[in-house]
């Protein structure tokens, strides 16, 4: 490489699978290094279908950055920037400020970060961005743990799930705390649009992204992105796991406009949570143990509370 070459390169001619990608109309093309059945990669592809090409994407460190940016290659057909782990919202704020200063009003800013970057280490930065009212659509691809480093606990890890830093054992049933309710916290900043979505319902996901793109100011969409590698299920079951999460009530899908729930995805039939937990090894310790009835009931209670809170039953 040339000594003065900056750390970014043209996509042209640098793609990993030229023949395949040339035919690919997507803004996030194939050839990246995500795991088989990765919910996150699927989410990104469909998010960009909904945003269109007039966007600059900002990502924190995480799975997405790692699998999409080995130097010299890139699946991104929109300008994309990764800086460090905990500052994607502030980088996005800076990009948005620059676009305003330059009068590039048609170009929009979308941040796409994982739950570790969003719920935990970048939370202060996110809160600042929301409070300032910066014109950024922030998308959290939530797989409930630090997958890039092998599946450690985050503030988004659900109750009882096994993670490498909070594993089940003789004195532990996995994560002992509930998942942080980030959509509520984001909404409490006065954020005009907050929604949850899942890769299991791509039509719903894209509709929400499109709606967010019609609005200005901070917007937040949290997408449930099942992770076959760490949730530990066969990679062809990503969408099914996602659907089970929704239909058990554990992953409520809703839209909040100006802090008020305006729309929810109703459940046709309510599934018991065990059907969702059963299919993932991260909950195996509950399913396998006789002593876990009380814990299982606590998870069922959470699902029931979600169903009641958001009015999920048809």
């Amino acid at each position, binding site marked *: *490489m*040339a*000594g*003065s*070459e*900056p*750390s*970014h*390169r*043209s*996509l042209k001619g640098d793609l990993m699978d030229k023949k395949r990608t040339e035919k690919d109309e997507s803004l996030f093309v194939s050839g990246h290094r995500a795991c088989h059945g990765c919910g996150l990669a699927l989410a990104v592809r469909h998010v960009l279908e909904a945003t269109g*090409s*007039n*966007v*600059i994407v*900002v990502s924190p460190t995480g799975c997405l*950055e*790692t699998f*999409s*940016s*080995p*130097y*010299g290659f*890139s699946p*991104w*057909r*929109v*300008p*994309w*920037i*990764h*800086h*460090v782990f*905990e*500052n994607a*919202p*502030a*980088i*996005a*704020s*800076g*990009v948005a*400020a*620059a*676009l*305003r*200063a*330059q009068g590039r009003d048609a*170009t929009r800013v979308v941040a796409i970060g994982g739950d570790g970057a969003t719920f935990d280490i970048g939370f*202060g*930065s996110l*809160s*600042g961005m929301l*409070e*300032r009212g*910066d014109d950024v659509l922030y998308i959290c691809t939530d797989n409930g743990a630090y997958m890039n480093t092998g599946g450690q606990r985050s503030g988004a890890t659900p109750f009882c799930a096994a993670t490498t830093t909070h594993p089940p054992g003789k004195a532990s049933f996995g994560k002992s705390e509930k998942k942080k309710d980030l959509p509520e916290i984001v909404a409490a900043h006065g954020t005009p649009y907050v929604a949850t979505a899942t890769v299991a319902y791509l039509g719903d996901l894209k509709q929400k992204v499109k709606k967010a793109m019609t609005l200005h100011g901070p917007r937040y969409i949290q997408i449930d992105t099942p992770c076959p590698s760490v949730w530990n299920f066969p990679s062809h079951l990503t969408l099914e796991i996602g659907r089970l999460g929704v239909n058990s009530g554990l992953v409520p899908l809703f839209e909040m406009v100006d802090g008020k729930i305006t729309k929810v995805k109703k459940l046709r039939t309510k599934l018991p949570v065990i059907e969702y937990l059963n299919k993932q090894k991260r909950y195996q310790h509950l399913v396998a143990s006789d002593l876990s009835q009380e814990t299982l009931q606590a998870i069922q209670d959470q699902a029931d509370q979600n169903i009641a809170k958001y009015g999920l039953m048809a």
Partner: protein
Amino acid sequence: MTKIKVVEGSEAVAMAVKACRPQVVAAYPISPQTHIVEALARMAADGELKAEYVRVESEFSAASVVSGASAAGSRSYTASASQGLLLMTEVLYASAGMRLPFVITGVNRSISAPINIQVDHQDTISLRDSGVIQLYVESAQEAYDLHLAAFKIAEHPAIMLPVMVCMDGWVLTHSYEPVEFVEQEKVDNFLPPFKPENFLDVANPKSWGSYAEGDVLMEFKYAIHKAMSEGKAHIRCILAELAALTGRDYGGLVEAYRTDDADVVLVAMGSMAGTIKDAVDDLRREGKKVGLVRIRCYRPFPHEELSAALGRAKLVAVLDANVSIGSEGAVGLDIKSKLNGRPGAPMVVDFIAGLGGREVNAGAVRRIVERTERIFSSGVPISEAEWLDLNPAIVP
């Protein structure tokens, strides 16, 4: 017509920044940086500063906002001090690596613990390895002048690195001095609008901040290093151009003061150089051949200029307002490493001086010269830094 006004150092900096027409300013308050960002906020409130002024929730985000704005092609500015600069550390390394040319004022202040808000250089020195160019100033006038140059240096196509103008907290930020301002038209000619070759552009989508393995990472780091060290030639030119613009020539990457025939040369950075110059004059009147080299550009390190300025001296005494705990002061270590192995190289003694705002007055400078001469005449070379004027009553 040029205008001279008695202003606070912080106001002088804000005037220079405004004249450079930044498009994005990010600010988070910390003493003693506050008067700079407050002055810029007033200018923005009055519509004199036409920049997006982003009031962030931390220094981490201040550095991040200017990084994002710079990547998107806007001239950007922020300022901080002390703990704030340390909080920015991770961001600054990454921004240098990604070649984002914003300007930051590093208002020098001590680092905790113990907490202390007075001046020393521990904060900015702690960032010396980050890839951020560091300039140190002696006066409010020089702070004004070098901020004009800072953007031009940062944005030079062969450099493309953040530039930090380091100025002593309180002593420079809060003192009033007559400062001569350059007319806007002349500044505009000196500093044209920022037009980077690469920026986040939907018409030409590129990926920034890639993951790089060992097969290219060293070359990336070398490219940054090369941009900085070869950038010295460009910095020299820009400083000469600035001198022509302002009519004030401080002498390039270093300022040499009465060093031509000096036996003992003191080395320092920042505002303490003013006191040292007075002390040098006093000692000269007594017949002692003493001089001062003031480092203005610390990163890249100006070893060519230093070699020339220190060449004839027998003794070099470095006043380091910082310390690498467990070793010596940073400037002393740099100078020793550059003189190492040179035939006839002077003996270098490193003094840790002025931490936490402790005054380095003319008497202290005199004691430094005497101590250095004593060490030399004892014939026993010294391997540790000398901590200046420690109070024996409270030293453990």
